[in-house]
């Protein structure tokens, strides 16, 4: 019995830690979706770019992946603004039969990024052998008579902590600064924001940049606990999308909760059904959200007067 409880708690904790990181990926996508009304299908590939930046900084200059957050995030910000300015904006202006052209465009961007990574860095699986990779905390070390023993990996905990810090900082940015408020205004009503004197074009570029920077930061945080290969983008794009649907489209608070739910659900399927089924579990929760809760968690929050 104790073993079962232990396994369950351990899975739950792993799920929450994973969920915190997922939330960071999801927020980036939901921000872009809210403000620009487009889905960025290159999201996972941008995360892959962030991971490679951190990986090479570690391999060549021995910079810790957690410090590379400060390098990768600004670089991804610039890359995001460039993509927005030179590729996405021109397409928004083009007249065509299908309005989904921008989505297909981001697929194209993702393909190019993933393939370029394969060409330049080969398709080998890589990981960063950080010194603290095997370090962990044990519950019994702190509480001698604990009935169950739970371990907490140092790098997982640190990644989670930084993800939370970034999320809180983003929350302050969006609610307390002028730029943040302008971004939220643009998301709510583009025309009204324009009339109020918000530079909508600049806000859109900034949002795309911030979304990319967030996912780049998430990539750096994932690097010490995950492995890296060029094709990893696709699965993270899907994860980000599932989180956005689960959380409610364009809702930042929803994305956080959605990320945690998905993280817990995924580690549960991995523990009790097997690793290979994790993508199916991910999809089941996605279908369940669509069928039973079409507005996502955000609609629940709204009906309880908790969210904005």
């Amino acid at each position, binding site marked *: 019995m104790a073993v079962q409880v232990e396994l369950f708690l351990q899975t739950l904790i792993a799920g929450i830690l994973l969920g915190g990181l997922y939330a960071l990926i999801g927020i980036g996508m939901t921000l872009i979706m809210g403000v620009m009304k487009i889905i960025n299908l290159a999201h996972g590939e941008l995360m892959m770019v962030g991971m490679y930046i951190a990986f090479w900084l570690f391999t060549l200059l021995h910079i810790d992946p957690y410090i590379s957050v400060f390098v990768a995030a600004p670089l991804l910000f610039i890359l995001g603004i460039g993509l927005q300015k030179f590729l996405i904006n021109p397409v928004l202006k083009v007249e*065509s039969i299908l309005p989904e052209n921008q989505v297909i465009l981001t697929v*194209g961007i993702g*393909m190019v990024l993933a393939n370029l990574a394969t*060409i330049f860095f080969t398709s080998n699986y890589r990981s960063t052998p950080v010194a603290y990779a095997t370090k962990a905390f044990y519950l019994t070390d702190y509480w001698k008579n604990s009935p169950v023993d739970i371990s907490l990996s140092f790098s997982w905990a640190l990644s989670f902590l930084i993800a939370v810090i970034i999320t809180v900082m983003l929350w302050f940015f969006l609610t307390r600064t002028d730029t943040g408020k302008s971004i939220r205004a643009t998301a709510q009503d583009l025309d009204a924001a324009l009339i109020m004197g918000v530079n909508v074009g600049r806000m859109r570029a900034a949002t795309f940049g911030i979304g990319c920077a967030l996912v780049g930061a998430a990539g750096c945080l994932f690097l010490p606990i995950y492995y890296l290969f060029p094709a990893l983008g696709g699965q993270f794009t899907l994860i980000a999308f*599932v989180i956005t649907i689960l959380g409610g489209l364009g809702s930042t608070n929803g994305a956080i909760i959605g990320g945690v739910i998905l993280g817990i659900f995924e580690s549960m399927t991995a523990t009790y059904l097997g690793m290979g089924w994790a993508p199916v579990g991910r999809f089941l929760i996605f279908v369940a959200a669509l069928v039973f809760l079409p507005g996502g968690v955000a609609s629940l929050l709204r009906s309880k007067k908790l969210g904005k």
Partner: protein
Amino acid sequence: MKKNLPIIIILILLTVLPLVGLSSYMMHILVLVIIYSMIGMAWNLLGGYCGQVSFGHAAYFGVGAYTAGLLYSKLGVSPWWGLILSIVVVTAFSLVIGFICLRLRGPYFALATLAMGEVFRVVAENLVKFTGGDVGILIRERTWVVKTWYYYIILLLGIGTFFIVKKVIESKLGYYFVSIREDQDAANSLGINTTLYKTIALCLSGALTGVAGAFYMNYMGYIDPKVVFALHDISIVTIMVVMVGGVATYWGPTIGAIIMVFLAELIRSNPSLGVAHQTLFGILLIFIIIFLPNGIVGDFPKLRKLFRLGGTPT
């Protein structure tokens, strides 16, 4: 009669083409062109005319292929029966997929179908007892060694698809589809049951793709989840075929398939370019979307004008 003359000429040309004595490799490429144009036409029905952009057509293709493959490996029946059975099976799957995904609109539908395609692949990989997992299905005895008969069968299927799509689009159904694409709410308010017609479009499109998948199983003799449920090589190439050729045009998917398949072969046969084929495809996709958003057929007047300005006086 006069209106149909070009079609008849093309049909005759296609029928006598194998008699010229093309190499086996050339025949293989022709078969691939027709397979992709068939999937492209099916995609066009749903994406181009009904406006529901699907990123998961590999799901239907794969289910069709696995229907034929499992008939052979589990029941010992000739996989050719899969061509007929796959229509039923894929339609059933399409109904389920439609029930879930058609609640979403626009880009959200696109992503949901993308997830669908991936899930089918993962399920096929993990249900080892049923599908054989990553080992795949191999048909040991091929029906023909020469490719001529395969060519005629797929040609027949391709022509059938072309006329089915044409008939559907010219009927009342086609007008419903286009009205849904242009404005779903307006269509709804005019009394069109949008959910029903979107489901019809999805089932038709899925079934046609499934038949192509079943043929693929018979033709290639080997499938595994990574081949038939491939996101890039099936789902996205399908979209590219239609985007390059022309969205919502009859000939677009065929033109697109010719260009894409020949381009792919050209790139892959060049060793230094081979590794970069996805980059080149991606750049082509970006280029097409920015400069020719309606494809070669759709933007033909624009292209003609461009070349006239280019200095060839006509």
